């Protein structure tokens, strides 16, 4: 995969307020790239910079290895799908979609042909004469996308396009976006604050926190190999356990924690006496019928039935620390009561060790 776009050491401030602090990333050809962050984290600013609406305070934006910082909006080979769709209320669907070509003085017959083709891609071929006001939110969304696609941009920038839709429609549109991106083979840079949406759609995700990228990687990378404790808690849930190394073996370490001694199957560059944070997902903790060599004893505080799965909140025997355990409901053979003492085993092979961090 070849790179098409690169942002290098980009910072942006409005007066005294810092919005982005030295961020860098690259976009590959045909990639679905998502920027994930809470509202106000500066994620929209990133794509507004790529689109040319905002200038970076410092840093460079490269397109095919050329700096495009100073290139005006209308010359950039990118198109934006705005959060509020921004369809032109004075034009019907086909004129909205054909606008980009009309501006480029494309032959009118050619525009008509292209508009029909693109409307077919987004499934609105029977709506070409409607006015935007007569369309539902989802349909307006498709028109906005068609309007961007028709210009054959190298990258389509989508600024929280699903934010205004209700849950059901949102799911449909996610599927639609994913399929369409594969079909037209254009890179998408997608903005969202919804983690599930990001995981479902993206080839890669960049998580924005405190004006910086916390981590960039595939959804699986981010879930199974979070680089920071923030990341561990950002995607789904994660138990973070403070530990002290008490013994070291070839490919594992023994640590002392508030839950007792644990054997962690990781080879790690730590000496006896060092402290570390061990993170493990709730579904990687197994409930045992009997104690085993690597199990720990915990007390059940409460059981949350969630349909196919159940969550158990358990407390350490030795301290006030809690662990969250997730299990398939049908796997939990006996009904648990609050106060029961059970044996659990941590699948430490898939857990993550955060070296120098204290639990945040």
């Amino acid at each position: 995969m070849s790179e098409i776009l690169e942002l290098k050491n980009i910072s942006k401030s409005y007066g005294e307020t810092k919005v982005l602090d030295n961020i860098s990333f690259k976009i590959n050809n045909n990639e679905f790239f998502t920027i994930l962050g809470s509202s106000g984290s500066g994620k929209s600013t990133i794509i507004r910079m790529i689109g040319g609406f905002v200038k970076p305070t410092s840093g460079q934006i490269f397109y095919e290895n050329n700096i495009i910082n100073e290139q005006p909006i209308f010359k950039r080979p990118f198109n934006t799908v705005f959060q509020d769709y921004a369809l032109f209320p004075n034009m019907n669907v086909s004129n909205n979609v054909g606008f980009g070509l009309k501006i480029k003085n494309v032959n009118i017959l050619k525009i008509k042909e292209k508009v029909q083709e693109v409307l077919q891609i987004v499934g609105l071929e029977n709506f070409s004469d409607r006015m935007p006001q007569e369309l539902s939110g989802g349909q307006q969304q498709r028109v906005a996308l068609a309007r961007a696609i028709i210009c054959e941009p190298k990258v389509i920038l989508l600024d929280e396009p699903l934010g205004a839709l209700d849950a059901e429609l949102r799911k449909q549109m996610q599927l639609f976006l994913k399929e369409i991106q594969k079909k037209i083979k254009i890179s998408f840079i997608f903005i969202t604050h919804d983690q599930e949406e990001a995981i479902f759609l993206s080839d890669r995700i960049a998580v924005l926190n405190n004006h910086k990228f916390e981590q960039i990687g595939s959804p699986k990378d981010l879930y199974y190999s979070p680089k920071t404790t923030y990341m561990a808690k950002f995607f789904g849930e994660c138990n973070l356990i403070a530990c002290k190394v008490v013994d070291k073996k070839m490919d594992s370490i023994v640590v002392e924690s508030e839950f007792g001694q644990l054997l962690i199957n990781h080879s790690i560059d730590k000496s006896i006496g060092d402290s570390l944070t061990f993170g493990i997902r709730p579904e990687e903790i197994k409930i045992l019928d009997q104690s085993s060599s690597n199990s720990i004893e915990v007390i059940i505080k409460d059981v949350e039935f969630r349909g196919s799965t159940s969550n158990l909140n358990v407390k350490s025997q030795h301290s006030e620390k809690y662990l969250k355990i997730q299990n398939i409901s049908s796997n939990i053979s006996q009904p648990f009561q609050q106060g029961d003492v059970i044996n659990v085993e941590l699948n430490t092979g898939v857990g993550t060790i955060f070296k120098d961090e204290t639990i945040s």
Partner: protein
Amino acid sequence: MAILTGLIVAALYTPIFLTIFYSFYKTRKGKVDWTSFSYEPYTKLIFEKQILESLMNSIYVGVVTVICSVVIGFYFANYYHTSKSKMKEFLQFIIFLPFLLPPIITGLSLLIFFREINLPRSLNTVVIGHTIFVLAIVFKIILNKLETLKPSLMESAYDLGASKFQAFWYVLLPNIKLSLIIAGLLAFTISLDETLITLFLIGNDTTWPIKLWAKMRVGFSKQVNASVTLILILTSFLVLLIASIISRSEKKITY
């Protein structure tokens, strides 16, 4: 309640309708002569050159005022809407000032100014006075419309490759067209019956309201009644037109 309301309405608005009435009928010693119905004042009006001429002057002033105030009003409103400068509040204050000040002050200041720069008084100085006066309303109407448009509208036009002019022509203008028409019609109506500022700024010409005023001082004539009736009809028509445009555009906006 209904009766009281009816009485107040009658007391307030009867004179207006009486004017229309008297343009058709003659009165003798306070009594209406019912047999005297005629269109004569209207036909005579056509030959009353001075009144017609003053009416044409008023229409000229009105039309030029509309053109000037809508162009300048749009320019200022667009500047106010898009600019981040703190000076824009001052701009708005200046625009509103002549509309809020007593017209005498506005008229007098302009008169002194024109005299200072040796600009002879004419219909054109009246146009300048009227433009300054109506600009506040035109500015406000256009600004209100601009503020209802999403900022992303122009941005998406640029994003799709439009130049500034193309974005203005294909996207902005069609979307504010109605407010420009409404602002223009209002400006025309206001300009048509403006008297005080006009009095200060007019030279040897005369506008329609001033002509009527002059005529009244030497006694009533049926032609005055007739021309008032005509203007009443014209103004009502304009007001109804504005109202229907507004209600139509509102319907269009509701999704």
